[in-house]
C-alpha cells in the first residue's frame, strides 16, 4: 500500500511529487500477454504523466477478466469491483458522494455489451463524469472462451463452434445513446491508448474507450477480429493523436501544413492534437462519426482514434447543482431540517 521508492537510484517524480510506483496496483493475475495488462500499464503511465492525485480517482468495474484489472493499477485510489454488468449504476451513485472525484471504470464486452447493456446505454445518456473503458476481446475469458456479443459473425472457437450472431459495436451503441466522448483503440497500439486515456480523463462527462484487447488464451487466431495479428493488419488510425495538457506548449512538426492538423479543445483547457488527417475526419461531427463507424463495419476496418467528441455539456453530477462541499462531508447541521420545520410539515398534513 505505501509508496516506497524503488531501491537504488532515486525514482523520478511527477509535478505533484509522486513516483510511477504511486500509480501501480497489485501484480496482475491475468494471462501473460493479455491485452488488459498493457491497458493497465498505460493507465498508470497516463495518470502519472497527468499528475493526478490517486486519491482523486475512483476505480470501478463489473465482473470478468477486464473487471479484475482495476486491482492492477492505482492502489491508492478507492475501488469498487461490483456486479456483472452493473458497474454503471454503482459508479453513478458513488460519484455523487464527492463531485470533485473522477471515475475510471474498466469493463469488458461481456460485462457491457450483454448483461450490462441496459446500464451501459443509460450511463451514456446521463453523461456521468467517468472514463468508461471496455476491454473488448470478443470472448468470455473467466468462463473459458464463450462468444461474447462483440464477436464477429462466423468466428470459430474451440469447443464453441461457429458464432451465428451479428456483433454489437460498442462505439455505435455509445453514439446512439448520446455519449459525449467516444474513442476506439487497440491494446497493441500502446501510445495511442495512453493518449486516449489522458484525453478521456480530461473530458467532463462520459468518455468511452472501446479498446480491442486480445485474449491470448481463447481468441487470438490470426483471422479473429479481436486478435493481435488482425489488429496489426487491419488497424486504420483516423489520425495521429497527441494529448497536450493545459498550458503545455504545442510543438508541431515542421513539415505539417495548415489543414493537416486539427485541435480539439477539452473542458479543462487541454488539447487533443490530431495529425495526418488524410481521411479528413472531423470527430466533432456526430453524423460523420456514425458514418465512419458504419463504413468501418462494412469493410472490416479497425478504425482507431477519437471517433466523437460532443460540444461541452454538463455532466450528470454537475447538473444537480450540488453544494461546493462534497456531499459525503456534510454533517447533521447541513442535512437535518430545523425543529421549526416539523411544525410547518405537520400543518400541511390534513
Amino acid at each position, binding site marked *: *500500500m*505505501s*509508496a516506497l521508492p524503488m531501491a537504488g537510484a532515486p525514482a523520478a517524480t511527477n509535478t505533484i511529487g509522486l513516483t510511477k510506483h504511486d500509480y501501480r496496483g497489485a501484480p496482475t493475475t491475468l494471462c501473460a500477454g493479455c491485452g488488459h495488462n498493457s491497458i493497465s500499464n498505460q493507465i498508470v503511465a497516463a495518470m502519472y504523466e497527468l499528475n493526478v*492525485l*490517486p*486519491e482523486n480517482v*475512483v*476505480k470501478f468495474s463489473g465482473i470478468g477478466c477486464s473487471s479484475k484489472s*482495476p*486491482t492492477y493499477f492505482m*492502489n*491508492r*485510489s*478507492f*475501488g*469498487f*469491483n*461490483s*456486479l456483472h454488468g*452493473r458497474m*454503471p*449504476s*454503482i*459508479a*453513478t*451513485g*458513488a*460519484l*455523487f*458522494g*464527492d463531485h*470533485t*472525484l473522477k471515475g475510471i471504470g474498466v469493463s469488458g464486452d461481456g460485462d457491457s455489451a450483454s448483461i450490462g447493456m*441496459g*446500464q451501459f446505454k*443509460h450511463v451514456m445518456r446521463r453523461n456521468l463524469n467517468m472514463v468508461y473503458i471496455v476491454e473488448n476481446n470478443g470472448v468470455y475469458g473467466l468462463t473459458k472462451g464463450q462468444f461474447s456479443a462483440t464477436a464477429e459473425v462466423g468466428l470459430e472457437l474451440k469447443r464453441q463452434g461457429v458464432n451465428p450472431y451479428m456483433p454489437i459495436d460498442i462505439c455505435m451503441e455509445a453514439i446512439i445513446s448520446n455519449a459525449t466522448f467516444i474513442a476506439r483503440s487497440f491494446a497493441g497500439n500502446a501510445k495511442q491508448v495512453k493518449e486516449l486515456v489522458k484525453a478521456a480523463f480530461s473530458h467532463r462527462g462520459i468518455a468511452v474507450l472501446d479498446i480491442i484487447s486480445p485474449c491470448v488464451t481463447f481468441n487470438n487466431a490470426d483471422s479473429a477480429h479481436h486478435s493481435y495479428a488482425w489488429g496489426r493488419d487491419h488497424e486504420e488510425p483516423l489520425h495521429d493523436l497527441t494529448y497536450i495538457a493545459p498550458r503545455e506548449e504545442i510543438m508541431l512538426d515542421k513539415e505539417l501544413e495548415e489543414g493537416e492538423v486539427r485541435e480539439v479543445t477539452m473542458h479543462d483547457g487541454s488539447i487533443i492534437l490530431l495529425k495526418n488527417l488524410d481521411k479528413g475526419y472531423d470527430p466533432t461531427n456526430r453524423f460523420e462519426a456514425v458514418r465512419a463507424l458504419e463504413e468501418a463495419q462494412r469493410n472490416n476496418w479497425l478504425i482507431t482514434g477519437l471517433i466523437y467528441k460532443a460540444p461541452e455539456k454538463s455532466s450528470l*453530477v454537475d447538473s*444537480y*447543482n*450540488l*453544494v*461546493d462541499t*462534497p*456531499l*459525503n*462531508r*456534510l454533517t*447533521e447541521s*447541513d*442535512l*437535518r*431540517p430545523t*425543529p421549526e*420545520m*416539523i411544525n*410547518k*410539515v*405537520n400543518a400541511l*398534513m*390534513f
Partner: protein
Amino acid sequence: MTKAINDFSIIIGTKNGSGSSTANNTILRSIFKMGIPVSGKNLFPSNIQGLPTWYTIRVSKDGYLGRREEQDIVITLNPDSFMRDLASVPPGGAFFYADDIKLPISRADIAVYSMPIKKLIKDDANIPGNFRELVGNMIYVGVLAQMIGIDLDAVHAALEFHFKGKQKPIDMNFGAVKAGAEWAKANLEKKDSFYVEPMNKTEGLIMADGNTAAAIGSVFGGAQFVAWYPITPATSIAEGMNEYLPMLRKREDGKHTYAVVQAEDELAAIGMAIGAGWSGLRAMTSTSGPGLSLMTEFVGLAYYAEVPVVIWDVQRIGPSTGLPTRTSQADLSFVAEIGHGDSDSIILLPGDVNECFDFGWQSFDIAERAQAPVFVLSDLDIGMNQWMSRPFEYPKTPMDRGKVLWEKDLEELKGNWGRYLDKDGDAIAYRTLPGNKYPLSSYFTRGTGHDEHAKYTEDSTMFVRNMDRLKRKYETIKKYLPKPILHATKGAEVGILAYGSTEAAINEARVRLERDHDMKTDFLRVRALPLTQEVDEFIAKHDRIYVVEMNRDGQMHQRLTLAHPESAMKLISVAYGDGLPASARWVREGILAKHTNVPVSKSAAKAMPAKKKTSVKQTKTVSKNSRKGVK
C-alpha cells in the same frame, strides 16, 4: 329508528380516472375537521381510466381506524358496479346513486336516494363544460353532507386546504357542494339512521398517508441520495422526496445537499443507492415486491461488502405481478432470507403513519451503524391510505453516522486500520469514504472473498472468520433496533403477535374479544427483525400466541416456530392474504376459529376435562362455558 351517530362506514363507487379523489378526500377532511375520528381507504384497480374503483370512509367515534367490512352508506356513480354496489348495502343501510343510471332497484329494506348529478351540474352556470365531470363529483359531497349532517363550513375548509387557498376552484367546487346540499334539502326525505355530529377527538392530530410520512421522515433523516424506479404502491415515496427535499432543505445559495435520480430499472436504482451509500451518502430506494426481486442480487453485495443503504418495500400482493393495487405482508420471508449464500437482514416494520416517519430517519442511523442494507417493510394500506395520526415528532436523537474514519482519524491511527478488521470487538469495522485524501485511506471493495484489509483472498479460514463476524454483527445491531410494542391486559393468557398495518384492526378486535368472548389478550407488535429478546419473553409468558398476518403461509409464524421449536405447539398462525386491508372482524373470527384446536396449557389441562377442550366454532356460537373451556 335509533340514530347511528359517528359510527358507520361509507363506500363510494366511481369510475377510475373520473376525478373522484378530490371529492372523497373532501368528505374525509370535512368529517376530520368536525372533530370526528375518520379514516379513508382507496380500493382501486390497476388501471388509469375506466375500471370501477371504490373509496371507503370509516367514521368511528371510538377512534377505530382499521377497515370495516360492512358499509352502511353506499354511493355509486358507476353503472358498471351499480348492481354489485346495490346488493352490498346491508338491511337498514342507505344507497345513493346518480339518477342517469337507469337500472332497476328492488330493495325495500334500505333507504334509496337518487341524485340528479348531471342536471344540477348543467344548471350551474359557473362551471365550464370541461370541468363538469370533475366538479360533478362535488354534487354527491353536497347531497351526502346534507343527509348525514356534515357541516358545510367544514367542507369549505377542506376545499380551501385542497386547493391551497386558490379562490376560483374553491368557489367552483363549493358551489357544486352547495347545489347538491340545497337540492337534497328540498327534495330528499331522510330515511336512514346515519348522522355525524361534531366531536373534539381530532384536535392536534394530522391526516396523512404512510408514503408521504416516509418521505418526510427520510428528509429529516438527512437523506442525500434517492434512486428509484416507478412502481405501485411505492412511487409516492420518491415523489414525496421530490416534493419535500426542496421545501425542507432549501438553502440560501440555492444549491442542493441531495440528489434524486429516476433510474432505468430497479437493478440500477439499487445499484446507484448502494454506490452512494458506499461513498458515504445517506442513500435510499423505494420499491415493491417485483422491484425488490430485481434488487436481490445487489442486496447480497451490500450485505457482503457491508454497504449502508435503506430500502423501502411498500408491499403489494404477489406472487409475480399479483394484484398491484392491493395490500399484503407477504414479502417478509423473502426479505428476511434475501440473497444467495448465507445472509441476514435488518427489517423495520412500521405499524402506522407515525412509524413511517420515525423509521424514515431511524433507518439511516441503523444502516450507517450496521454498514448494511436496512429494509423498511411498509404496505399499500399504510403507504397509500389516509390515516388519522399524531403529529410527526422531530427526531429525538442526533444522527448516528456510524464508524467512519477521515484524514485526521487516520493520521492518529498512522494509517493502521483494516476495512474489515473487528477492532472494537462488536463485529462492526471502520470504513473510509472516497475523497479521503490520506494516502492510506483507500481500499478496494468487492463482492468476492476478502480479508480484513479488503484484499482478495480465497483462504478458507479467512472466509469463515469474516462470515462469522458478519453473523455477530447482526447480534450487535439488535440493540439499535426499535423494540416491540406491548399492549398488555391484566390477567391475559392469550397472546397476539403481529406486525405492520394490522395493528388498528387487532386493537379493535381485542376490545370485542374481551367484551363479547371474555378473551383477554396481550398484544405484542414486533417492529424489527432480527427478533429481539422481548419476543422470546412474550412467547415464554403466554400459553397460546396467535400470530396474525396478511399472507397465505403465515410467514412470521414460520420464522417464530423456527426460532422457538420448543414453543411451536403454542404458536398459532392466523394468516390470510386477499389483498384487502386487515379488518377487526377478520382478526377476531380468525382467532376464534383457531381457538378450537389449540393445545391447552398444562395448568388449564389439569383444571378442565378433556372433552370440553374443543368448543368454539364460530363467533356467534361462543358461549360463556365454551370460552371458559379453552382457558
